[in-house]
């Protein structure tokens, strides 16, 4: 007999990862709404879900759709299937070079591939099933996303170090 665990256990086991994915794909402001819609929708469908289903992949798939809904509801451009230019969410030259912001500025598909593979831990075959396209394409999108983040990230890291050194120098002066 297949056993289906109480939905409370599903929330306890996967709530944090789904929130992480929502935060990565939508940013902190809209993540709460997407998370709530994801788990409400999942709970509705839960009794019909096959007991041997991969819960994490199922939840991330729902979160992916809910994130698109949230973006649409805001009248923003829906996340398209193809790659976007890198400037979709950049508000101008002046942006805080923080890693989360850098992630936010990635093209939708790269951002999603990074979130679903690196943050949710899904294999590329599952990422491809969510995004459409092949596992190789999902792998490339994630690799491109990581490469873009690394272009930003060393700068971020260097600045942190520089700031640390400046603070240390200040200490010495005192």
């Amino acid at each position, binding site marked *: 007999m297949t056993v289906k665990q109480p939905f409370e256990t599903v929330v306890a086991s996967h709530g944090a990862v789904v929130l992480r994915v929502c935060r990565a794909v939508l940013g902190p402001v809209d993540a709460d709404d997407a998370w709530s819609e994801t788990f409400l929708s999942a709970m*509705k469908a839960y009794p019909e879900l096959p007991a041997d289903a991969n819960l994490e992949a199922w939840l991330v798939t729902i979160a992916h759709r809910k994130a698109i809904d949230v973006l649409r509801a805001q009248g923003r451009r829906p996340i398209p299937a193809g790659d976007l230019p890198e400037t979709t969410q950049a508000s101008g030259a002046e942006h805080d070079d923080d890693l989360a912001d850098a*992630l936010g500025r990635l093209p939708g598909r790269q951002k999603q591939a990074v979130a679903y593979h690196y943050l949710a831990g899904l294999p590329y075959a599952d990422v491809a099933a969510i995004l459409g396209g092949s596992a190789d394409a999902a792998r490339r999108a994630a690799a491109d996303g990581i490469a873009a983040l690394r272009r930003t990230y060393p700068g971020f890291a260097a600045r942190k170090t520089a700031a640390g050194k400046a603070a240390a120098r200040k200490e010495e002066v005192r």
Partner: protein
Amino acid sequence: MNTNHDLIRDLTRSTDALPGQLAGLHARLAAAAQRDGILDVAYRVIETPVGSLLVAATETGLVRVAYATENHDAVLQSLADRISPRILAAPARLDHVARELEEYFGGQRRRFDVPLDWRLSAGFRSTVLHHLPEIGYGQTASYAAVARLAGHPKAVRAVGSACATNPLPVIVPCHRVVRSDGGMGGYLGGAEAKSILLTLEAAA
């Protein structure tokens, strides 16, 4: 590549839940599930003089009270199997029963008037359980007397098994059923819990 590892670690950290965020989201989910009529079973755990009691309710009423010795995780799994897996820790639906239990353990309440969902008991066991509230607060009755109440004077052992599988202990007072020879008899919550309840009721 080490830098990739660092990058992913930092990425993970930058998308961490804020303190209290998941608890807030959970409460919001429970409220939305209740609103949409998909919260098939709500539960909470209440601390009492007889230990942690898990209380669970359907839309119909209180469906399960479980002692810690019954293993709350196992009880929740059995509720998922027998009623529905759409189960959440959602305290609001249990506010009424929590308040009545607090009054009961404080010696200020002699009977419970929360709505009950009897679906976890059936047949003769259910008949027995329905008769237990006739044993008044502070009173006891023998297994044989309860068998007579239930209309089957010879079914003494069946009364024992009905009590042993009572899905709503404390509320449906199987602790008031004792042995004819004056012995306390067994109890699904353990002898100590039975003794605490009988002492509480005798004192009030």
